[in-house]
């Protein structure tokens, strides 16, 4: 196994008095695609936010390429090469499709991703590039959100609820595009409620349940029964 690009050690997170994550340990190897599954409220988004710097944690609880980043701001995390495709897309409604993508490239990291390459991946965005981002369909908005994150040329990309609220045909299109995204050696964490989809693209899977890791295993060996138990907490 390669050196881990990301290491999470004993991560706990709170919203006021409510504890959302308990002592999470997790690693992502260089070039690896990791899937995180879990029911609503299991702590998946909190975990993504903690990695992306949208929630501050103890510096040592999140380590990226050996550096303690748990206490950094979101923009400092982004500068180091971690990009987030947030749940619900979170596009900028006042900006056009192209401007949304350009904003993604503001961190100024070198790499293969450019406006041209994003348009090659999602040709429909080129056609609609001058349109207001909110005038697109949900699936096209998700493409903008993915393109916007890629424009930062990240080494680790986080997809939070990549297929939530999208039509099955759109989900298929996005999953077809995924190998083209992560094939170049980029590491990825995919948060997904659809277990079959999650298993199909990842090499390892983590299941969260009520803020704790209830299962960790290789995607091709973990059984459906194990997942059901870990997902629903049925003994």
């Amino acid at each position, binding site marked *: 196994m390669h050196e881990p690009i990301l290491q999470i050690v004993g991560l706990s997170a709170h919203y006021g008095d409510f504890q959302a994550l308990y002592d999470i340990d997790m690693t992502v190897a260089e070039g690896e695609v990791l899937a995180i599954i879990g029911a609503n409220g299991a702590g998946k988004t909190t975990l993504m936010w903690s990695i992306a710097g*949208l929630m501050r944690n103890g510096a040592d609880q999140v380590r990226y390429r050996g550096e303690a980043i748990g206490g950094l*701001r979101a*923009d400092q995390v982004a*500068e180091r090469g971690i990009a987030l495709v947030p749940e619900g897309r*979170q596009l*900028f409604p006042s*900006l*056009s499709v192209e401007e949304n993508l350009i*904003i993604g490239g*503001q961190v100024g990291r070198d790499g293969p991703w450019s406006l041209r390459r994003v348009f090659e991946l999602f040709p429909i965005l080129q056609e609609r590039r001058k349109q207001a981002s909110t005038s697109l369909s949900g699936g096209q908005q998700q493409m903008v959100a993915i393109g916007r994150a890629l424009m930062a040329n990240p080494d680790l990309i986080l997809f939070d609820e990549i297929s939530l609220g999208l039509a099955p045909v759109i989900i298929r299109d996005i999953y077809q595009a995924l190998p083209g995204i992560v094939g170049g050696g980029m590491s990825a964490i995919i948060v997904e409620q659809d277990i079959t989809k999650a298993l199909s693209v990842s090499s390892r899977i983590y299941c969260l349940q009520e803020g704790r890791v209830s299962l960790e295993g290789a995607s091709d060996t973990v059984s459906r029964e194990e997942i059901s138990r870990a997902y629903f907490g049925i003994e």
Partner: protein
Amino acid sequence: MNATQSHVTRTTSTARAAMLFGAIATAILIAAPWWAGRADMRLMSELFLYMALASLWNLMAGYAGLVSVGQQAYVGFGGYMLFALTIFGGLHPMAAIALTPVLGALVSVPVAILIFRLRGAYFAIGTWVIAEVFRLVFAQVLALGGGSGSSLPVGIVRSLADSRSGREALSYWLALGAALLVIAVIYLFLRSRKGLALTAIRDNELAAGSLGIDIWRTKFVVYVVVSALTAMIGALIFLQKLRISPDAAFSVNDWTAFVIFIVVIGGIGTIEGPIIGTLVFFLLRETLADLGTIYLMVLGLVAIIVMLKAPKGLWGLVRERFGLELFPLGYRVEPATGKKED
């Protein structure tokens, strides 16, 4: 709609018409010293300076989310710097006016570092407290008249131009030029990459942060630039008045309450809003000024009605109803069916 059969444009025919109208209006306004009376020119100068103040406050509050009620700190600071630099520094008033934004920027840096620790309502109160501190500090400077203030010496006023009409024309042109400069700077800034980042922050601070936009630094830059230009407008305001005192210079009513009124009724977060708002404010003021305190009550009533019935301001109403945009920042798709929408 099929996107391939339509074309995309940033400008609209309304915007082009507005630009042409703006150019003609500017030419007419530049020629005002030859056609307008003395009182009209003074009124128009005041209007332009309010337009500039409102546009600046709108950039800070409407785009960067920094709701300050203490911008009178920089208006007063700029005014006092004009007096100090000309009286004690021996500078020509024009040189002093050119220097005030630099000094305004310098003084706003430590203020920003201090008040950026506060959020929301605490930030607003903090800015007001800072403005009061400025007022109290300048009231202690006896060389500038202490609490009762001082007038600009005749010699300095005469150095602007020999004749009274020449001075009044110059001061009018400076006010007009300042308003045009401020609006142009804001428009160009918002169309630049930094402006894009600022718009992204306004739309969604969370997403902007996770895309690598340094939110603190972007807001800091906006605060410093706005404060610098506000100080310059302050210098121009007190060049018109020729007299300064701490209470007039740091008046929360004159330089912040009215400015917020203008932006709110015009439409916060748009370039057009403060322009429309200033015109409405002066219209109300000039027609209701004889009513005394009732005038202020009417202003309050107008503000409340607009906030309840048109939260996006008068410009928001116009834009929603007619789809107009005079300063196009975004793109729009126009169907290529031969029928032009406008």
